[in-house]
């Protein structure tokens, strides 16, 4: 349900919350259409809180912190005492950040300023979930032992959670479209999925980020299998050793590159996952037969899937 104009926005993704409030009650908080299904009416158990207001000039006078990470142009992370300062820039809005938010080291509480007339605050409306702010904050919080964000299409089919990992252009949206056209599948997202470890095993969650055609869903499914996407002239499924699986998944994950503990957490998380969940390479044609190949693999293993779909069994290739 859309919130009242003067109430905070609470974004909840993978049971992780981010509440945004504004200093000035005259400013209206607005969520992007893709984020609306992910809004919660109340804060959950694990929810960070951010207070935002227009630029006051207070931060401009402060000494810069120690740079922990700098993308070069888009966003930067600095250490200020025990706190973490995130700043976001865009060439069109000059050298100063259009958004800066100072968090505690666990990213649970933040206070920030945004340029009036910038991409976040304009015409009395504040859009806190403009890329990449919310995604960076979630990434930082996931890296604190909560889970891993991956570049993937994720779906639920007959109670099974299936993850198709791929970098840009690998066929994630094509895969989502094929399953959607077949029917019976719930697409969680065709671009970004959160994986978390829970009592029952691993679980995949939809996110609002970068999806196509409004397929992103705040739903989840128990993870049953992972496929590394690779477009090819034929359908084929190959088992991948856990070692190779971790390397292939890391390339398609978004660990906190600025934080050694976060990086190590992501590697351990994916290694443990590869021990319990089958990870396979899917060479596929962008046509419905690719789904049959995946379902055969889910039911009977990779070799059977390949043979059923006219392929030949071959030894595992190095990535």
């Amino acid at each position, binding site marked *: 349900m859309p919130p009242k104009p003067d109430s905070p926005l609470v974004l909840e993704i993978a049971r992780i919350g981010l509440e945004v409030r504004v200093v000035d009650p005259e400013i209206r908080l607005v969520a992007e259409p893709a984020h609306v299904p992910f809004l919660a009416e109340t804060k959950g158990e694990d929810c960070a809180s951010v207070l935002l207001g227009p630029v006051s000039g207070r931060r401009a006078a402060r000494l810069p912190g120690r740079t922990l990470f700098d*993308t070069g142009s888009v966003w930067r992370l600095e250490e200020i005492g025990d706190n973490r300062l995130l700043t976001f820039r865009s060439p069109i809005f000059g050298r100063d950040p259009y958004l800066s938010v100072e968090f505690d080291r666990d990213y649970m509480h933040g206070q920030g300023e945004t340029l009036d007339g910038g991409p976040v605050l304009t015409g009395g409306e504040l859009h806190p979930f403009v890329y990449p702010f919310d995604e960076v904050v979630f990434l930082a919080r996931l890296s604190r032992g909560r889970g891993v964000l991956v570049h993937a299409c994720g779906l639920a089919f007959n109670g099974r959670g299936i993850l198709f990992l791929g970098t840009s252009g690998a066929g994630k*949206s094509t895969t989502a479209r094929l399953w959607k056209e077949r029917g019976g599948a719930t697409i969680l997202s065709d671009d970004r999925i959160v994986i978390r470890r829970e009592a029952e095993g691993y679980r995949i969650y939809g996110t609002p980020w970068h999806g196509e055609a409004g397929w992103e869903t705040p739903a989840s499914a128990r993870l049953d299998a992972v496929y590394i996407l690779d477009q090819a002239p034929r359908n084929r499924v190959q088992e991948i050793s856990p070692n190779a699986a971790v390397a292939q998944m890391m390339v398609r994950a978004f660990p906190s590159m600025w934080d050694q503990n976060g990086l190590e957490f992501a590697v351990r998380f994916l290694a443990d996952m590869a021990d319990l969940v089958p990870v396979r390479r899917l060479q596929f044609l962008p046509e419905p037969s690719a789904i049959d190949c995946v379902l055969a693999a889910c039911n009977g293993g990779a070799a059977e899937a390949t043979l059923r779909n006219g392929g030949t069994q071959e030894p595992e290739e190095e990535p």
Partner: protein
Amino acid sequence: MSREQHGRGASPRRSYQPPQLQKVRLIPDEAVLASCKNNATAGPAGPIQKCATNPAVCSHSAS
């Protein structure tokens, strides 16, 4: 217990695998959320995604 049955009992004993060195190719801008997802990558533009990284060239700018 097969890997398909994970979560239904104790974890299987991990077999030893010798260390291996693997090269993987990263796309730096994408890996650290430093690109305009809507126009600088091969993936599709999200029609309802706002982007503030480079509104001047982004068809889905926030301005």
